[in-house]
């Protein structure tokens, strides 16, 4: 009963005997005790429990002795009582003079008939006469088998190992291990067990009894009480650690509150051509209802929340001349036309992809395949007043993947964007080295890669000390002029972008090999509760 506290009666009841008390009583007159002799009827487990109870209070000391004991089986008990099978057969034949072999089982039983007949022939007590059995030995023979078993029964031992093995094989005896105890008085031996307290209680405090109270020793080898604790999901714990890194570096968290985005924001504005394989039915979830998006336009709710978040930086970096600076409002129509132009005909110093750009393809609704769609929106907004800015987001993205141990149709993308004037590629590398050092990966190298919306594009490889090899841990690059200039951002403003999945570093951190054990409804609740806190700075 959990929660029971205070003085409790210690005696351990066994078969209505007060065993602990009996042990104490007997020790008073007889020392040492041999439990097998003094308490033959009590099971070893019960004896042990009682002795442990007393020994833990130093009232007794005991030593255990292991020995083997040979016991008869039910069959051999029967032999001891009624004689061996062969003797039974001999007696039956003697009584009747002659027994047809066929009828023997019905007279002495099937078991005695088969074993007893064979042994009787071998001992030359009986013999076959045609189809019948007749006596050879007319006087009752000495029943050696029965005598042997009787002897074993009395001594519970047998010195002849070969014979013992034979009897075990015939299933006439079994061997059991027996533990007996030799018990002597302990340093605190007394005839009575003093009342013990398991805990300090308010009553003991109030009465002052705690001063003389006898406290039950605490089991320092066991775990403490279960806390029935609530828990945060490990993936969100890692997410928080990443958010903290971003916050420490001055990033503003982008409003990512729409799983559905348009072909325009998710692809076209990012200079992903309309025939790009990423826009295949195989890779992207398309929305069947609602059927079609509007052209890009101002989104009041997202504007308001960005204004609110950027108020801090506006205040801090305010300069007198800012008041005179004219904000140029976004021209969504021009943006739309320029995106079309840069794909279809080329513009802003690019020859473009030179294909007929379809408006309908751009207005298709998709489940966003990356949160870079939101970064694009934020950068377009930045073009109203181009200034240094840092944005990040960590949110769910969707891919029409076949689900397996490393792929789910949804996962979290960590995305960071830094806009500033005159940024260099080496500066991005430096930033990433710093960023990943914060999460415990300090050895990085960069591989040239291809991505439709960044140029240069770099895959980030980190050295995994455990696996002793380089692992791809993220993607990065500088956004293409074809993406930035249609937004109205000035040519000398450059923008870093980098991203990684939240699941992958979490799987590495927690040693999870199947992503379905991390995200989704199949995650084990005990696992969630038992994962330690995430401390990038500590690991």
């Amino acid at each position: 009963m959990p929660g029971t506290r205070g003085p409790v009666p210690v005696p351990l009841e066994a078969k209505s005997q007060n065993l602990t008390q009996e042990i104490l009583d007997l020790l008073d007159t007889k020392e040492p005790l041999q439990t097998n002799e003094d308490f033959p009827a009590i099971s070893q487990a019960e004896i042990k429990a009682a002795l442990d109870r007393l020994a833990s209070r130093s009232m007794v000391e005991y030593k255990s002795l292991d020995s083997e004991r040979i016991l008869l089986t039910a069959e051999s008990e029967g032999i001891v009582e009624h004689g061996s099978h062969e003797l039974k057969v001999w007696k039956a034949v003697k009584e009747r003079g002659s027994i047809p072999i066929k009828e023997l089982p019905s007279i002495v039983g099937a078991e005695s008939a088969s074993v007893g007949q064979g042994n009787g022939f071998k001992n030359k007590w009986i013999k076959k006469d045609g189809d019948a059995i007749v006596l050879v030995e007319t006087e009752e023979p000495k029943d050696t088998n029965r005598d042997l078993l009787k002897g074993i029964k009395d001594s519970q031992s047998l010195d002849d190992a070969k014979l013992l093995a034979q009897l075990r094989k015939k299933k006439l005896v079994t061997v059991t291990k027996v533990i007996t105890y030799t018990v002597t008085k302990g340093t605190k031996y007394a005839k009575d067990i003093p009342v013990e307290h398991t805990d300090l209680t308010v009553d003991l405090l109030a009465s002052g009894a705690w001063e003389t109270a006898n406290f039950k020793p605490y089991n320092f080898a066991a775990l403490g009480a279960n806390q029935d604790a609530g828990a945060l999901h490990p993936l969100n714990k890692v997410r928080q650690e990443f958010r903290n890194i971003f916050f420490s570096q001055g990033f503003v968290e982008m409003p990512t509150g729409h799983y559905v985005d348009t072909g325009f924001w998710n692809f076209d504005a990012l200079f992903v051509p309309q025939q790009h394989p990423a826009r295949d039915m195989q890779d992207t979830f398309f929305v069947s209802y609602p059927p079609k998006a509007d052209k890009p336009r101002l989104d009041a709710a997202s504007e308001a929340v960005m204004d609110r978040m950027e108020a801090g930086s506006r205040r801090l970096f305010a300069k007198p001349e800012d008041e005179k600076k004219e904000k140029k409002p976004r021209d969504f129509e021009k943006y739309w036309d320029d995106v079309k132009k840069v794909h279809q005909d080329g513009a802003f110093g690019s020859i473009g992809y030179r294909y007929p750009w379809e408006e309908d393809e751009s207005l298709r609704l998709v489940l966003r395949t990356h949160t870079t769609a939101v970064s694009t929106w934020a950068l377009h907004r930045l073009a109203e007043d181009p200034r240094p800015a840092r944005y990040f987001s960590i949110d769910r993205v969707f891919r029409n993947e076949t689900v397996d141990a490393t792929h789910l149709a949804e996962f979290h993308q960590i995305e960071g964007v830094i806009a500033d004037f005159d940024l260099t590629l080496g500066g991005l590398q430096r930033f990433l080295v710093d960023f990943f050092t914060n999460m415990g990966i300090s050895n990085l190298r960069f591989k040239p890669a291809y991505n439709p919306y960044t140029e240069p594009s770099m895959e980030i490889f980190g050295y995994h000390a455990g696996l002793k090899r380089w692992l791809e841990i993220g993607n990065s690059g500088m956004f293409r002029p074809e993406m930035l200039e249609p937004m109205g951002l000035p040519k000398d403003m450059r923008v870093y972008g980098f991203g990684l999945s939240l699941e992958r570093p979490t799987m590495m951190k927690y040693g999870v090999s199947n992503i379905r054990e991390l995200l989704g409804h199949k995650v084990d609740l005990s696992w969630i509760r038992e994962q330690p806190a995430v401390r990038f700075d500590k690991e």
Partner: protein
Amino acid sequence: MPTIAVDKAALYKELGKEYTTKEFDELCFEFGIELDEDTSESTKPEDQNQPAQLKIEIPANRYDMLCFEGIVMNLKVFLEQQQLPKWTVNAPKGGELQVLNIKPETKQIRELCSGVILRGITFTQERYDSFIALQDKLHANLARQRTLVSIGTHDLDTVKGPFSYEALPPEEIKFIPLKQDKEMNGKQLMEFYEKDKHLGRFLHIIRDSPVYPVIYDSNRTVLSLPPIINGEHSKVKVSTKNVFIEITATDKTKLEIVNHMLVAMFAAYAESIEPIKINSPHNGESREAPDLSPRQMQAEVKYLNDVTGLNLSPEEISKLLSKMGHDVTPSKSDANILDVSVPITRADILHQADIMEDYAIAYGFNKLPQVFPNKTAAVSAPLPINKLSDIVRLETAASGWTEVMPLILCSHEENFEWLNRKDDGKSAIKLANPKTAEYQLVRTSLLPGLLKTINSNKHHSVPMKIFEVSDIGVVDLEQERKSRNERHFAAAVMGKTSGFEQVHGLLDRLMLMLRSAFLTREDGLKNEKLQGYWIEEVDDPTFLAGHSAAIRINLGGKNHTIGVFGILHPSVLQKFELPYPVSTLEFNLEVFL
């Protein structure tokens, strides 16, 4: 990204060096391709039983490395063992070009056609195999499974120009397709290849069209039925000397890219590249093809140096860029300008940003000066809804509930029928192309995920108390994206008793933390100025009758219903296969912003 398998010994022979796998991996890494596998290190019997191969991943926009020849060429140029070849076309001895006439009817189905002739080519079995494999790779990647471009190659000596590109009703087109021995018409051909694993997937491109594209020679021999198959008659063999390549397309840019790639990769085995004369007056596409002249563009020295953080002279930059196949000369008139000849192989070069990247690759990404400009500091800010969510998450976990993260996508019945909810057809975002019924729509409630999570954890002891703070999606036709997310809080408890007072208590606790006072219903309805929340019994088929309550709130003089809690209806438990009573709580967090 395409992966190309090349013969290891042959590649190292061409590169003039026996690389260790590690050395070659380094070379690939610096150049921006990736060594995926060296089969000599494989333990699979099928790999050990054949000459060692290197499997190399190629960036999706480098069509000039989709075959052995291209990889060798680009690596040798990068290693400065050779210059990139300069490709030129040559008319045949007589000066008379082969002619391809394009009929206006082709406009209905596959309007564009181009081609080239490789004269005096010497194939070996390896070269021939590579030639076929390259076409497959181009079809799969750049040509988007032959929809945009498809290639047909022919033994020129088996056919006779002028050639004619036409569009005819399927029944009128009769020929023996490649590798077959009996003649069939267009319609029969569609049926014949219906079940073909390889070709079957291309049939849809033309099948339902009233006319099919077809190329004839002057004897009305069918060369090919693009984009499906060539004719057996003009098949290219290892012994073929003169190859006629015809390319049909719906995309003009990609048409010529494909032509350029085939020429650049295989011209080295031929005596000359011979152009063809295309007559296509109806759409203004008459010309001689291909045009192999490099594209001239300019790049700014300052831009290249600024973005890479380097400071090299125009001459040094030019030298580095030649490792990437560019022919660059500093402009005579402007010290800041480089005149760049972009070879036909580099279709990926669109902007001087691409030249800048090549400059950085040639210099070495990992040798660039790593300096982060210390010019600006920024002021961070969390997204308000995430900050609010974190408050609620922490308070709920502190109350002894466990956070879970189910999926956003779910099936229609989990979101509606199983919860005894009706789909009005206007609120849920539905998906057009899910691979499984598990992903039919964006959840409109957090309940399905919570209940599925409990279902997968049935082996644990009860009570089980879980929660989630995350977004649901709803249709909102006012929005540009016709939909928006909404941040919800939801919790569920399963135990031997219903747990109704548990979710109720959790609601009270969260409202306390969100500074919303508890009101009685009468007070709430009577006094509009009183801010706070109250609950009202509601009739909701998700819940057991008489055991569900709407959560009402007065914020700034406005009343909202933000959610509902209650004991789940036994039929809901049955659908989600939950053995014990379950109570749930769900409400919209956004009103607390």
